[in-house]
């Protein structure tokens, strides 16, 4: 068990390191550097940057140093919670991102919860009642879910909502709460706006997980331990829910490892369509404006949070599967 934990932890740390490098590469990739973009930004808005100021900035950001030194400097900054300044807003990046990061995570985690809550019962039903009408319907809807990218689903629903209800279905808050400080009422408002974006985000994942759950469970249903459980006089639902479903749950639980990155990815683009106040639209704006500190920071934070989420799901797996828990304890 300790070996497993150590392995997962080491991998998580390694992944986070890879993400920091990639984020740094993204920051550094565009021609020119932060200062040139800054000057361009200033002159575009009619401002003026003196030569001395440019030199000071270059020194401060270490732009006269070789790449790895810059990377180390940047990492030190990041570790101290300083992510640089967002050009367009002329405010620290952390301030610009603000609540948006947490809202991204709220939406993503809610989407995962929805995905699981839907996929599990549907998958179980599809497997236990294989080839029934319900199974065919689930399979059909599942195919649609696989084929319609989430942003397209959002577009279509947006259009339908506009056409038939004359209502904009986007956003995470009512106008009244958008800029308001956090109160219970605002949380409630958020909760009321959550279902649609989470359903859109979770749809494709649900379709995949239903397929996985169904296939896993079909595999397990014929196993001898199910037959012996039945031969012990347990009721059919108890047999199925306690034994094969429980076993099929393990590969299912491990899917969260790639489901989370997938959904976080999707949230970027769906947020843009639905106008959700997550980091998605911000990232896009930053990239188009070549505001690389902001963009790199968003990529970094999203990546790190995803890895942490994945690590937590590994812990969950550890808790539910005795085969891993007792590994090496024979």
């Amino acid at each position, binding site marked *: 068990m300790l070996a497993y934990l150590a392995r997962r932890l080491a991998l998580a740390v390694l992944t986070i390191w890879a993400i920091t490098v990639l984020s740094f590469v993204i920051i550094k990739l565009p021609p020119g550097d932060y200062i040139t973009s800054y000057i361009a930004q200033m002159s575009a808005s009619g401002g003026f940057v003196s030569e001395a100021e440019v030199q000071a900035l270059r020194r401060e950001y270490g732009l006269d140093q070789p790449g790895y030194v810059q990377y180390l400097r940047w990492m030190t900054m990041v570790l101290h919670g300083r992510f640089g300044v967002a050009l367009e807003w002329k405010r620290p990046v952390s301030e610009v991102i603000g609540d948006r990061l947490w809202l991204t995570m709220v939406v993503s985690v809610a989407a995962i919860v929805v995905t699981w809550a839907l996929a599990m019962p549907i998958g179980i039903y599809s497997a236990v009642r294989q080839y029934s009408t319900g199974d065919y319907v689930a399979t059909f809807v599942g195919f649609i879910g696989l084929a319609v990218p989430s942003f397209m689903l959002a577009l279509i629903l947006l259009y339908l909502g506009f056409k038939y209800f004359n209502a904009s279905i986007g956003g995470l808050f009512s106008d009244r709460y958008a800029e308001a400080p956090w109160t219970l009422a605002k949380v409630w408002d958020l909760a009321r706006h959550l279902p649609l974006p989470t359903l859109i985000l979770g749809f494709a994942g649900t379709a995949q997980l239903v397929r996985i759950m169904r296939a896993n469970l079909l595999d397990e249903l014929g196993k001898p331990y199910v*037959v012996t459980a039945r031969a012990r*006089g347990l009721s059919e639902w108890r047999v199925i829910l306690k034994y094969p479903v429980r076993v099929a749950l393990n590969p299912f639980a491990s899917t969260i490892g790639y489901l989370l990155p997938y959904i976080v990815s999707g949230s970027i683009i769906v947020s843009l369509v639905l106008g959700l106040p997550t980091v998605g639209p911000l990232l896009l704006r930053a990239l188009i404006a070549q505001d690389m500190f902001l963009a790199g920071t968003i990529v970094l934070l999203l990546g790190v949070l995803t890895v942490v989420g994945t690590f937590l799901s590994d812990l969950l797996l550890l808790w539910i599967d005795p085969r891993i828990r007792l590994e090496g304890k024979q």
Partner: protein
Amino acid sequence: MPTDGRPILEVRELRTYFFPEEGTVKAVDGASFEVFPGRTLGIVGESGCGKSVTAKSILRIVERPGRIVGGAIHLRREGGTDPAATIDLATLDPAGLEIRHIRGGDIALVFQEPMTSFSPVHSIGNQMVEMIRVHTRLDKAAARERAVEMLRLVGIPRPDRRIDEYAFQLSGGLRQRAMIALALSCHPRILIADEPTTALDVTTQAQILDLLRHLQAQERMAVVLITHNLGVVAEMCDEVVVMYLGRVVERGPVDAIFHAPKHPYTRALLRSIPSIRASVRTKLPTIAGSIPHPYNRPPGCPFHPRCPDVIRGVCDRSEPGPRPVGPGQTASCFLYEESP
């Protein structure tokens, strides 16, 4: 052995067919036999002859697309004043309460592969306590106590610790012992053991068979032993049923079957056992041909294409019924004239 000469379980003309998309498979096609209290019935035959499906049919746990299409399975009721009172398992609702009480309560099942017969994610104790609590009114602590007791009874050392382990932590022999403990934890009247020793090595096999015999005497239960190993049959059984392609071809007391086999198939089976008395370097006889594909059952007697004594024009036309060939012994073969 206190027996009034009445069977505790009587299977009559059982037919269990499978209906996959491609056609019909007659896995069990008219099997009849009786099981007596305190005695052991052996069901032998090659793989695919319908032994396991017969066992599953008795417990009504045949998986789709299979189902019982004919015959009766009479189980004598327990403790009733009328010794003749029986219940036909074949007519029960397979998901109903009544059959569920019988499963594990009256008739228990032990499978070939103890590793896969236990849930990989539940401890042995968890599964035992669950079963005991389904069939008795014991509370959790008492059920656990009984489970520990059962594990001790089957010879598992330190049962109070082993109970919380998982099947994959035990050795093969201990696993099968645990499986037997699980099966017997509600004191069933009949134990169906489906190839209980096939997956074990030879010394462990002997121990498990010893254990079964010992427990049978102690619990006074009937045992149905399903196996393809004739040595095990000779050692353990009182009566033997020989099956071929879903049909019972011969049955009788174990001595008669081994010393005076009547059906050509039984004879061929016995000939194919290696004998210590055989002269060296003689080829071990095998049964000619192979088991037909389940979709292409031969017409007439199912064994006739491989039978050395086939009577052309008879065996390939109609199916022989069972005829008495000795005391308590019947064979389904045209070689033996129907008694008038």
